[in-house]
């Protein structure tokens, strides 16, 4: 049972990575939000497992917070935003998707290479997954760069936060509770602000395409 559970952490990690790749390759905003929800759910599951295996009960609380904020609240908010803005479908990318995937593979190799010496130092149960967490982080960052619309960028940002959370759980069995709570509220506040911001962009330019923001530059 114990062995099975510790293997399941690796499974969740692999799922996270696949989900991030799926996000990068996905053209539709609605799907990206669904994928984000799945990512959140995977994160919750892996946190619970780590908490169970290491006997650290505060991880349950952080899993609960993650569930409420990242699986329920933020996806609902995002759904509302895209309904109100009426941008359910098209996603334009700045770099075409196959190229992005190739760069993504390079990043994953880089992340594993990077995580190897750190993972050796770590005593955590999920230390093997640190490379994956880093890879997810870099991929989400790349998603932010490669998207032209505001909503997928925000999701890229949130996914980056998820990866960080996972990395913390993987490397050190989770951050202190107070830090996690703080981050959860930060993300929530951030999403609200970004929502307002998106409406403002829309009002200003009649589009959510952030390329319009280039006009704001002073010459």
């Amino acid at each position: 049972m114990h062995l099975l559970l510790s293997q399941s952490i690796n499974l969740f990690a692999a799922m996270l990575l696949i989900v991030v790749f799926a996000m990068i390759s996905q053209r539709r905003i609605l799907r990206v939000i669904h994928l984000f929800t799945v990512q959140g759910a995977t994160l919750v599951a892996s946190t619970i497992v780590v908490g169970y295996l290491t006997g650290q009960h505060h991880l349950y609380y952080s899993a609960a917070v993650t569930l409420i904020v990242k699986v329920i609240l933020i996806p609902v908010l995002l759904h509302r935003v895209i309904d109100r803005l009426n941008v359910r479908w098209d996603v334009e990318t700045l770099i075409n998707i196959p190229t992005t995937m190739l760069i993504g593979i390079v990043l994953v190799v880089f992340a594993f290479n990077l995580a190897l010496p750190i993972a050796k130092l770590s005593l955590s149960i999920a230390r093997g997954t640190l490379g994956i967490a880093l890879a997810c982080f870099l991929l989400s960052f790349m998603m932010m760069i490669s998207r032209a619309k505001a909503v997928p960028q925000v999701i890229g940002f949130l996914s980056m936060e998820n990866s960080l959370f996972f990395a913390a759980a993987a490397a050190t069995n989770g951050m202190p509770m107070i830090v996690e709570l703080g981050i959860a509220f930060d993300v929530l506040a951030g999403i609200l602000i970004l929502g307002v911001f998106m409406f403002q962009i829309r009002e200003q330019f009649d589009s959510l395409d952030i390329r319009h923001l280039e006009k704001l530059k002073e010459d």
Partner: protein
Amino acid sequence: MILDWMLVTIAGWLLISLLGVACLRRTWLVSRLLFPAGGLLALVFAVLAVSALFSTPEVAELALGLPGLPFHLRLDALSAFFLAVIGGAGAGISIFAAGYFRHGEGTPPGLLCLEYHVFLASMCLVVLADDAYVFMVMWETMALSSFFLVTTNHRVPSIRQAGYLYLLIAHIGAIAILLCFGVLQANTGLYTFANMRAQELSSFWSSCAFLLAVLGFGAKAGILPLHVWLPEAHPAAPSPVSALMSGVMLKTAIYGLLRVAFDLLQLQLSWWGILMLCLGLVTALFGVVFSAVQADMKRLLAYSSIENIGLLFVAIGLALLFKAYGMIGLSTLALTAALFHVVAHAFFKSLLFLGTGSVLHATGERNLGKLGGLMRSMPWVAWLCLVGILASSGLPPLSGFVSEWLLLQSFLFTTGLPDPFFNMLVPVVAAAVALIAALAGYVMVKFFGVIFLGQSREKRLVEAHDASLLERIGLFWLAAVTVLIGIFPVYLIDAIDQVTQALVGYGLAVTVRANGWLVLAPISIERASYSPLIFLGIVGLGVVLAIVMVRLFYHGRIRRAAPWDCGFPAQTARMQDTAEGFGQPILQIFSPFFRVKREVPSPFDAHPQYRLESSDHFWYWFYLPIARVVERLAIIIAKLQQGRIALYLLYSFLTLIVLLVVIKR
């Protein structure tokens, strides 16, 4: 004990500044209540500082500041001396400011009250600081609060530019001072002055620290080529602020230099003295020549401040030179001259700046070419300014003479220097100092003559009103101190003795006191002596005798008659000698100093306009090339900025990747 009371006084200033914010726009309350209260506190502060001068040093540790980094304060003779100057001159300026600040001039009066008292408090804390941390925090507070005071009329673009220039140079100076402290702590990581004193630096690192200190404090003091902010900021600021900045703030730079060169550094090298001597000399000559050709009265005074700072540098350089050769007695003499001049300049320059403030308020005119004959309508300001003028031009029996006399005395004894090269150089410097003193007199004659004497150049000047009561009190206090320290220099030298004892281990008090309070003889009574009271008596007697002779033995009446008019009867007041005309000889003789732009009208012009602009070569040789380089670099750097979020994110992404690679190594 005294330090505690000083801190209470400083807290009082801060309380006043908060009250100023509370009654932001109630001009009457701020000017009639808060400013005089601040002035009284300054007076209390000066008394405390004087009593501290004659007692043992005190230290304190405030619980303010960052956790684990408390504020260390120390009150020793050097800081007490400068605190007395700040308090004494600050008192007069505050009282004057109470009558000066009026409704509706840019910044609301309550805010001015805040900035002004924070400025005062930060200057005092700079001088009290005993570690680099407090020193820098207070130094920057001082720069910022004075920046806001300079830009009181911030709606005028030229004033904003002046403020910007001031802030820029103040920050260059602050960086140099910070680096200087970094060198002084010698990798121990402890920034208290006590630790710096304990370090034994090699001559290379000592020289580094010294040069950085000269650069940093020189920027604040206005030493060449970092002087450009002075003639811009002083005319831009309201007069009490210019007075405070020129009379008092510049002295904090002198304080810092003395603190680093004589107290924190354990080693003095002779070439430092020569460097400061040369810098000071060039600055003084430059300042006095430029002040001679100015047509704006506050610019004139600003350049005159540059000149006085140059003289202070000369005196300090001389003191360093003697100290390096172990000639303690002469070093003390030069240092005494410097400290005496600090006090003298603080009072007379504040007095003159405040005088220009009264003139400005009465006439609305800063241009000397449009003033004249104000002696009749503003007798109080004119007579009190005359005191400042006499002191500033170094005439006996006032304070300016004593310091210049002491400085020249210390030059006269330089023949004992072991280096023949310095032996030849120093008399040349003495001659130059004499030239500067003479030119300073010329400048002051111009200043007083064009503003107060002769006929009014404009009709409306006749209606100019004299200064208000509070303004008069402030001016009177400054003038009284100028006269008193001029007539009784022995008492001031008694006080300076405490400082020189602490800095070079020797004082003049014993030799001076041996001759009683009437005669000042710094070396010995046989070599040279000066008795201001006797001098005053003779001058007074001469005046009385002349009046009596004229009244009794000559025809005895005052005749009013037309002067000889060169055969041209239609003379107007505009035909009097102008400021430009008065400065013309200097402009011709020292023409390589200036970059002159002259517009001479053609003889057939019906409305001839003569325009003359003399500007500073340093702008074109030093500042504009730097500005061009910065601009070019900025254009290159601006290419990074494309306004695309994806690109900005890419920058941080690449930075992250590079950092990760570096860490992995």
